[in-house]
């Protein structure tokens, strides 16, 4: 065995072996990705449906509308209806940084806080009743620090938002003079989550206006 290893040390051989390793691992990854991607997308859809039930009042149809297309991280809007009447609107949004152009497209005020999360963008589904209250918040994706930032997914933290009015001025954490009780040791995650809720409120307000309910 030692002999073979020593023999295998010529530069060309090293090059060939490493190239082969990388090529094979790339091939394996491509194959596995191909096999799994449809199922992963399906799991995400199921998760989204469950989340929608969680943050909306009882409804029988939901019309989805993509308001900001993105292969990885789209912003979507769901108008939920019962007996043909809208009962609630849910906004799916994330903490990724939006360009001025994107903000304009979504009709969100340009000076809105865009606090970033600690890790990958946090994705939320924020549910509003049609009369302008937050019904619930569901966390679709969160890769924050286990045990600290992941605590945004606790009922205690979410209660900051649930049943809250939607006055935009107060939507920041207490450290920044707002109403939201930030998590200890996870101010960044708390800020990012609050910023997403604030963006969702702006999106919701525009949608309600366009629905012309009154």
């Amino acid at each position, binding site marked *: 065995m030692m002999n073979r290893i020593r023999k*295998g040390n010529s530069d060309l051989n090293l090059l060939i072996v*490493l190239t082969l*390793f990388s090529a094979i691992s790339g091939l394996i990854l491509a194959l596995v990705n191909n096999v799994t991607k449809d*199922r992963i997308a399906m799991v995400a859809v199921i998760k989204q449906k469950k989340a929608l039930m969680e943050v909306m009042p009882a409804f029988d149809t939901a019309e989805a509308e993509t308001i900001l297309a993105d292969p990885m991280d789209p912003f979507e809007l769901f108008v939920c209806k019962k007996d043909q009447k809208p009962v609630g609107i849910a906004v799916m949004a994330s903490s990724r940084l939006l360009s001025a152009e994107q903000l304009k497209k979504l009709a969100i005020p340009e000076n809105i806080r865009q606090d970033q999360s600690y890790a990958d963008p946090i994705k939320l589904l924020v549910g509003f009743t049609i009369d302008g209250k937050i019904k619930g918040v569901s966390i679709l994706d969160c890769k924050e620090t*286990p045990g600290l930032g992941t605590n945004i997914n606790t009922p205690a933290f979410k209660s900051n938002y649930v049943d809250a009015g939607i006055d935009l001025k107060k939507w920041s954490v207490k450290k920044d003079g707002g109403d939201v009780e930030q998590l*200890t040791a996870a101010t960044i995650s708390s800020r990012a989550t609050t910023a997403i809720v604030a963006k969702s409120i702006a999106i919701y307000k525009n949608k309600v206006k366009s629905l012309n309910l009154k």
Partner: protein
Amino acid sequence: MGLDNLKKELYRGVVTENPTFRIVLGMCPTLATTTSVQNALGMGISVIAVLTCSNIAISMLRNVIPNKVRIPAFVVVIATFVTVVDLLIAAFIPPLYEALGIFIPLIVVNCIILGRAEAYAAKNEVLPSAIDGLVMGIGFTCSLALIGSIREFLSAGTLLGYTVVPFTHKFILMTLAPGAFITLGLTLALINFLQSKEN
């Protein structure tokens, strides 16, 4: 390999060559994920699975990998492996992914995996390498659970989420990074002290 041998191996992984307290490898995940017993176990179980499988893979490939480039080759194998496991769990066992998903990418940067590949799997047959991965993983899980229970208990008076002693105020320092270093340092010191007494 008989049962006696297996027991000896287990003793080696958990006590004499414990990855955290004796070899002192994989400190980053140890410090980061021991905020509670549940997180510690989540990380530990993920490491058991990945370490056992990566040891098997490395051991099978050990005669093909030239000595000079073994480390990059190991890294490629391990990173591929972890990504495959990550994708498969996400697609086929979503509930498990909900619980362990955040830990799986952290495993790539865990030195224990590379350490065992280099120190053991690259020199041994497949079966002993698999067993080495298993016992080392168990040893890692035990130490993480120990640190996790100390930190969780001191910070909130709970264990695995159940209240043991009701605290009126949380001792937040223990869930933060300094708490991790303090706990790890003191536990290491205690274990070294016990060890030196034994000798």
